[in-house]
């Protein structure tokens, strides 16, 4: 909603959704007026249970936003408090009120900071404008949850989604999941960072990166905000390469910032850029994926595959994920929680692999003890890189709870 400066204070602002099909959201309309104080009209499907709590919260948020005179209409579909706060704030801002004020829900204790090389087999995408998906997103055991501000959010909803995601980072318990946010393409993404970074997400995905400068811009902006808010814990970056240009610069991008923990690929945009059809076999993106794996390894960062879009095709997903692991990827994106287990199974070492690695590691330790320079298993001599791979596989198997 665009609003002319001279009419700002007269313009009503609306945010959120309501209707029979809507769940866990709320629609708020704020109509500024010159006098008469605050008048709140409330409809809610949970009115007998939380009507008073919603009214109380609305009054507090409106007061904190500095709104003195307004007609406020709330249609609630069972929204949780962090959603109600975000929707009221968005409506007020759209009415030209309360700008620069952040009305924040209570903050849960922050989880342990995320390690650069933590396991990132699966990351579950959650649309940033659909609060109903936020609350239980972490229950399904993905390694990460991505609150998405980019493609899943309509251009007219970007401002509101930003507040919703910010409040979710404060008020929703994401359990063991790494808390990731996909910002918009720069420069819009820089505005996202203003709201998001103060809530210490663990990782930011930067979409459609085509040059190392974009990573540097984001990284500098993050450093600035972190300094302002006294945040010292790491906030990692995961650039998404989604174009031919991006692929050509994969290594420069991967080394553009110390904060980069992983590279990932967006195949929908990449195939569109090439003007080819995305196939289940993925022959058209073979070069890009291998290019990325190689660049990421050269830069010592993780490399994560795209999403598999067909939620109904579990067998197709399994095939894709197994192939993905064979190519050197360490994880995939998920568009539905049902995909998580399949992906975890596909990226887990097989029992044959574990057995073999265990033998190699045992032989390695034995050789170490005996002071032998050469590791041998039966009649075979084992090269150092083979030992390294076995050690890495065992560490991974351990992290997945397989040994």
């Amino acid at each position, binding site marked *: 909603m665009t609003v002319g400066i001279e009419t700002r204070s007269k313009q009503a602002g609306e945010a959120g959704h309501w209707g029979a099909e809507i*769940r*866990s959201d709320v629609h708020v309309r704020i109509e500024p007026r010159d006098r008469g104080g605050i008048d709140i009209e409330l409809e809610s*499907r*949970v009115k*007998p*249970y*939380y*009507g*008073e*709590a919603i009214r109380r*919260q609305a009054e507090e948020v409106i007061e904190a936003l500095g709104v003195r005179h307004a007609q406020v209409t709330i249609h609630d*579909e*069972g*929204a*949780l*408090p962090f959603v109600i706060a975000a929707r009221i704030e968005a409506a007020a801002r759209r009415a030209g009120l309360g700008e620069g004020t952040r009305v924040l829900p209570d903050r849960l204790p922050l989880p342990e900071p995320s390690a650069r090389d933590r396991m990132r087999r699966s990351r579950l995408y959650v649309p940033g404008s659909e609060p109903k998906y936020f*609350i*239980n997103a972490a*229950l*399904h055991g993905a390694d990460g949850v991505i609150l998405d501000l980019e493609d899943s959010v309509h251009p007219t909803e970007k401002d509101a989604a930003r507040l919703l995601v910010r409040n979710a980072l404060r008020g929703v318990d994401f359990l063991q999941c790494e808390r990731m946010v996909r910002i918009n393409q720069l420069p819009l993404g820089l505005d996202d960072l203003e709201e998001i970074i103060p809530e210490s997400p663990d990782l930011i995905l930067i979409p459609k990166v085509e040059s190392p400068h974009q990573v540097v811009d984001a990284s500098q902006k993050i450093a600035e905000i972190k300094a302002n808010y006294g945040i010292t814990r790491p906030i990692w970056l995961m650039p998404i390469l989604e174009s031919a240009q991006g692929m050509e610069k994969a290594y420069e991008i991967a080394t553009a910032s110390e904060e980069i923990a992983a590279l990932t690929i967006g195949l929908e945009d990449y195939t569109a850029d090439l003007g080819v059809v995305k196939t289940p076999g993925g022959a058209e993106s073979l070069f890009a994926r291998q290019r990325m794996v190689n660049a990421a390894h050269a830069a010592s960062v993780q490399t994560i595959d795209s999403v598999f879009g067909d939620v109904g095709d579990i067998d197709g997903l399994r095939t894709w994920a197994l192939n993905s692991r064979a190519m050197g990827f360490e994880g995939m994106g998920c568009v*539905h*929680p*049902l995909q998580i287990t399949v992906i975890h199974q596909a990226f887990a070492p097989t029992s044959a692999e574990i057995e073999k690695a265990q033998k190699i590691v045992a032989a390695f330790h034995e050789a170490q003890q005996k002071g032998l320079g050469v590791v041998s298993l039966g009649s075979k001599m084992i090269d150092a890189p083979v030992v390294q791979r076995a050690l890495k596989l065992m560490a991974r198997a351990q992290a997945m709870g397989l040994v």
Partner: protein
Amino acid sequence: MAILEKMELVLNEAGRKVPEMVNGHAQVPYLGVGKLQPRGCKAAPPIRTAADYPESGDKRVADLETALRKCGLRDGMVISSHHHLRDGDRVALMALEAASRIGVKNLTWFPSASFPSQKSAIELMASGVIDHIEGSMNGPLGDYCTQGKMRGMGVLRSHGGRWQAIQDGEVHIDVAVIAAPTADSFGNCDGSHGKSACGSLGFALADSTYADHVIAVTDTLVPFPCVPWQIQGNNVDCVVEVDSIGDPAKIVSGTTQITRSPDRLRIAEFVARFLRDAGIMRDGFSFQAGAGGIALAFVSYLKQVMKESGVKARFVRGGSTKYLVELLEEGLTDYILDGQTFDLDGVRSIANNPRHLATSPFTSYNYHGKGNFASMVDAVVLGATEVDANFNANVVTHSDGRLLHGIGGWQNCLAAKCTILAVPSFRDRIPVIVDQVTTLSGPGELIDVVVTERGIAINPLRPDLMDAVKGSKLPIRPLLEIKKEVERICGGKPQRPRLGDRPVAIVKWVDGTVLDSVWQVS
């Protein structure tokens, strides 16, 4: 009637306020599980003689009005119907409208369950043809009742409780109207065949044996004999042929759908893993699950787990669906014992597979019998709208006091060896685990496990189950801990909705005592 009398309320053994008189009948307040000792003999219909019925066996009459007149329907009588055609049923309304046309008033309508498509019964209540409904009510009929508009008081019973009430003479049915997907002119009825096939007719069995008069209404009349005769023609007075007894699209669903909600799938998976980890799922075991989204997904997960473990069930209890039929056809269970048939695969199976058997509330649920199947089932998976810290549960009303569900077989199933409530921890913003349930439908001492998407709580009265799952990776947690977590998410405990002080319906326990009241809401 009753509401004009001064309503005396007493506290029953569960601490709930219940009326002592309902629709002019004295009631026994709930005494506790297994405490009521019934005395006396079962009720029985009058003795008839074959001399009064045609030797040809042809009991057809022209229409329902003729049949109702012939059966002597008068003011104030009890007329019954059944819900084996579910929301597609046309026969119950046809019968009530025919009763209206012949000018009778103040009937007690005694359905085994009512459905939203029967909402025009409201007009018949407004015009005085129906005094009140004794049977489950939801949707518009439920609202009519909870708004206090019904003249008499509603009486909600379980499927087993309905049998018990008929058998014990608590409810005397004057005229039973049975919708028959197939029938012959003698009155033998079968549910598995015909254009309106629905599977089992078990809900109508008690009415056919205890009612004074029985009318069979069919849209598929076959020459004698109609087999299998789920309802015996020897109990039937008249047969009426009509164009259609129901809307096939609403009788059974084409395919019953598994939920796609990740949270509900997670609950279903937890239940299946619980049965495995607790050692309940072993060769020769048995279970029952309904046709709700979580229950269907549970069956599908359990099937995987059974296959992985190489375990077979001896029997499963329906509500049958495609998913139970698959278990039967793949040899993962020896039998389906089916109370009602929910989808086309179920109907096909019950018609063709001798190991898929129709049961009745007598065999499955009746508490005043020499035992019943329900207590022999190893595990049952049920839903609920609310559960309290002591595992007491509500399945009848919304948290705001409006009628939501019938009791169905829910109360009867609590007798299973392991009773599991599979419920989300909150709906919209409304917590499911509460301080006090709005309407007590089942005592917590019979509810063993509550499975939510945030964890599994075992009733402290079942330390054996707690021991059985030691070492399991499942998130076993105290119910109160889950409750607190959900209250934090929802922004504190909900306000208690304000209920009226006038009971509009009662909830019967399986032995006919009064477990709780449903209160008028504004």
